[in-house]
């Protein structure tokens, strides 16, 4: 018997000549909560796939509970109690909770026929493991992401799990659901189950993990106890550069008003929202998912039409009844889901960045001047330091951070008065995150008014000069971020 549930030593893995892992080590003790951090492409998912037996390493050894393996297949990994909860959760949205919980066991047992009673028994056993209550006959697509996660966890526990790997479990869930998740993780630990928690959010790492491992470019850069870690060290390990963040200071008290909203309401969205933004301000909007913050942004951008209230731009009342009208009034919107709402993933980077300028670049027959498109793309790629090979590559080939910069570039290319950013750094690496922060602050200094909608309280505090808190569709508080404590803001937001 060994103290370690898993010990991976000097693991190397190549994909067609590209080095994904270059001799990394990771050791997880029995019953500990271990955090694995690193930027996109650092080899996090590769090591997960190696530990769970989906990839065979090119060299190195894996030791599970004292047993050495050179090659391991997924079945062996499962037999040894290794379970992975993928970011997409691997659930079937169209099936019931019961079927989702039981189906893996039934397939593994090579069943030919369906037995509802047997499935129900398995499902009941599964949810009992974490003391979670749910209607087993509900279809999974009707549940929130947090509840789906609980289902994925209970399912993983069915196979006598000793190590549960969670791949970025907190990216898509609300603060409240994160709390519930952490409670469950602690509960698992009490049962002697180790958890490998993949995340790049420092506050979460501090809160939950005892030990950490950080990868960068397929190599170990640090490992140890989380107690020894702080924000600066963490960012340095992840990115390899020193990043100092400063709070945004707004000094132009006499600046003109750019956007004013009076008693704006949208059915099933928000009610009686009023606020006033000056030129060059960065204002944060925070609140739980479903607090109406996204609906508010979408209404300002003309995606919904407000039921009542008034919107004024530069003191003139305007009607925003369509997205086109919003853009004409100088309002840009970076949606929370850039993949489905902000970009044409399979289209060239150049087209994605230049799309709002096409009508300008087109001649009378509608033919677009490609040299102008190229010129402007190169300009913005340089300006925002977008890392790209070829501007004709599909935008989907870029990393999350660079994709987000492309959405930003699209809006910056046209003359905006107000830019609304909805979760601008979700799924974005720390390095790119700070690039985006610096860019936003620079633009605001030049006179752009920015609205940042975010759950990430440190993000709001360091980048905004004011913050508005929304709850159940109402604007409950507007505060200056000067000397505002994070804990106080957290209380208001929840």
């Amino acid at each position, binding site marked *: 018997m060994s103290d370690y549930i898993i010990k991976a030593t000097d693991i190397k893995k190549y994909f067609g000549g590209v080095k994904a892992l270059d001799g990394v080590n990771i050791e997880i003790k029995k019953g500990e909560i271990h955090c694995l951090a690193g930027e996109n492409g650092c080899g996090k998912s590769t090591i997960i796939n190696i530990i769970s037996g989906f990839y065979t390493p090119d060299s190195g050894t894996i030791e599970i509970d004292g047993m050495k393996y050179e090659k391991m297949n997924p079945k062996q990994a499962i037999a040894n109690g290794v379970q992975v909860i993928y970011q997409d959760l691997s659930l079937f949205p169209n099936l019931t909770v019961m079927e989702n919980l039981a189906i893996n066991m039934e397939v593994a047992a090579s069943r030919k026929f*369906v037995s509802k009673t047997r499935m129900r028994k398995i499902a009941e056993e599964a949810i009992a493991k974490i003391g979670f209550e749910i209607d087993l006959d509900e279809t999974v697509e009707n549940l929130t992401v947090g509840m789906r996660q609980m289902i994925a966890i209970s399912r993983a526990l069915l196979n006598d799990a000793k190590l549960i790997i969670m791949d970025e479990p907190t990216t898509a869930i609300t603060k409240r659901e994160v709390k519930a998740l952490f409670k469950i993780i602690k509960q698992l630990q009490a049962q002697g189950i180790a958890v490998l928690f993949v995340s790049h959010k420092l506050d979460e790492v501090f809160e939950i993990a005892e030990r950490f491992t950080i990868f960068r470019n397929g190599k170990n850069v640090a490992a140890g106890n989380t107690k020894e870690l702080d924000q600066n060290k963490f960012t340095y390990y992840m990115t390899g550069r020193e990043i100092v963040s400063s709070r945004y200071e707004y000094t132009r008290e006499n600046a003109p008003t750019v956007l004013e909203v009076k008693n704006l309401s949208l059915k099933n969205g928000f009610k009686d929202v009023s606020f006033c933004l000056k030129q060059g301000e960065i204002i944060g909007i925070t609140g739980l998912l479903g607090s109406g913050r996204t609906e508010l942004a979408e209404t300002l951008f003309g995606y919904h039409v407000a039921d009542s209230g008034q919107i004024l731009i530069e003191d003139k009342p305007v009607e925003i009844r369509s997205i086109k009208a919003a853009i004409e009034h100088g309002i840009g919107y970076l949606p929370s889901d850039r993949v489905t709402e902000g970009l044409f993933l399979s289209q060239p980077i150049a087209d994605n960045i230049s799309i709002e300028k096409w009508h300008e670049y087109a001649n009378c027959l509608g033919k677009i001047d490609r040299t102008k498109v190229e010129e402007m793309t190169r300009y913005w790629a340089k300006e925002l330091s977008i890392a790209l090979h070829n501007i004709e590559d599909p935008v989907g080939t870029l990393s999350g951070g660079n994709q987000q910069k492309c959405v930003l570039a699209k809006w910056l290319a046209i003359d905006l008065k107000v830019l609304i950013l909805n979760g601008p750094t979700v799924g974005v690496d720390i390095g790119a995150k700070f690039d985006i922060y610096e860019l936003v602050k620079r633009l605001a200094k030049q006179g752009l008014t920015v609205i940042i909608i975010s759950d990430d309280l440190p993000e709001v505090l360091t980048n905004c000069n004011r913050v508005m808190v929304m709850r159940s569709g109402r604007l409950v508080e507007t505060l200056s971020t000067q000397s505002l404590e994070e804990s106080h803001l957290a209380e208001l937001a929840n």
Partner: protein
Amino acid sequence: MNLQKTVKSTEFYVALIILLLCMVIQMKSGQFFTGNNLVDIVRAFSVPAMFCIGEMFVIITGGVDVSFPAIASLSMFVVCSQLEDVAANPLPYFLVAMLIGLAVGILNGVIIAHFKFPALIVTLGTSSICFGIMQGVFKSREYPLCAPLKEFGEMNLFSATNPVSGLTSNMPVGVVLMIVLVFFGWFILNRTMLGRGIYAIGGDVKAAQRAGFNVFGILVFIYAFSGCMAGLIGVLRSTMLLAVHPNNLEGMEMTVIAACVLGGVRMTGGKGSVLGAMLGMALLIIVDNSLILLGISTIWKKVFIGAIIIIGTAASAIEVKRNERKLAIKMNEGGK
């Protein structure tokens, strides 16, 4: 299933529409609930309904099969024109047709599952190939039915005569095949792990793979099954028409897909029930058969069917929207 869920289901609405429609037709014409009319409807229903089962399997996995009319026509024509007088009973004809269908179906399945090509394009291709072979190699044309199949076609379960008009309609033996196939489809989908696999693939292919389902095998199975059944149905159709009409089934794919959608089978995969698809088909057939009874020119048939498809699709789209809203409200409440 509890009452609330039943009332909310697509199947319930389609059944309700069918019921209302039948009553309207009955009131207007007094001819709907007569023996011969009901027999006629079941007769017209049986062939498309059988196609529905195979198509459903495919749509639930997230694909679509538009090649079955071509497969059915090809196997029917080859069997009837090449095997004339080979056997004295109809069984070998059916078996050979099923084998031809199976071969084309496996081809569909392997290409779609292995190369991950879009099912619509692949089956459009095989459809064209099948029609082409039938017309080019076998010089398809109207053809008399050979004796054993003709005998089979003339067998009736029972006949119904309308006392007013004196018209007689016969219930073909093929209806038994339909009942067997419908039950088989229901059994596979609801009672076997294979069926769960079909739904699982439609829900999330990657998750199905990770759960240990043999995704390749299941996909090949459903296309092979669809093809094999198409072969069988092709020959059955010729026995019901008592002649070989090689182009009679062209366009059937639209009716069958429409019936599935109408009955709540989700085009993007993962959802659908045998009951729903059957009700959808019943609705289309009743509209098709009964416009004459209502004194509406058959020219309007296509308009009616088109309108029903749009209304049916819109209804399910609205339902999805409503569910989204509900979820948002649920989250709102959680936030208080």
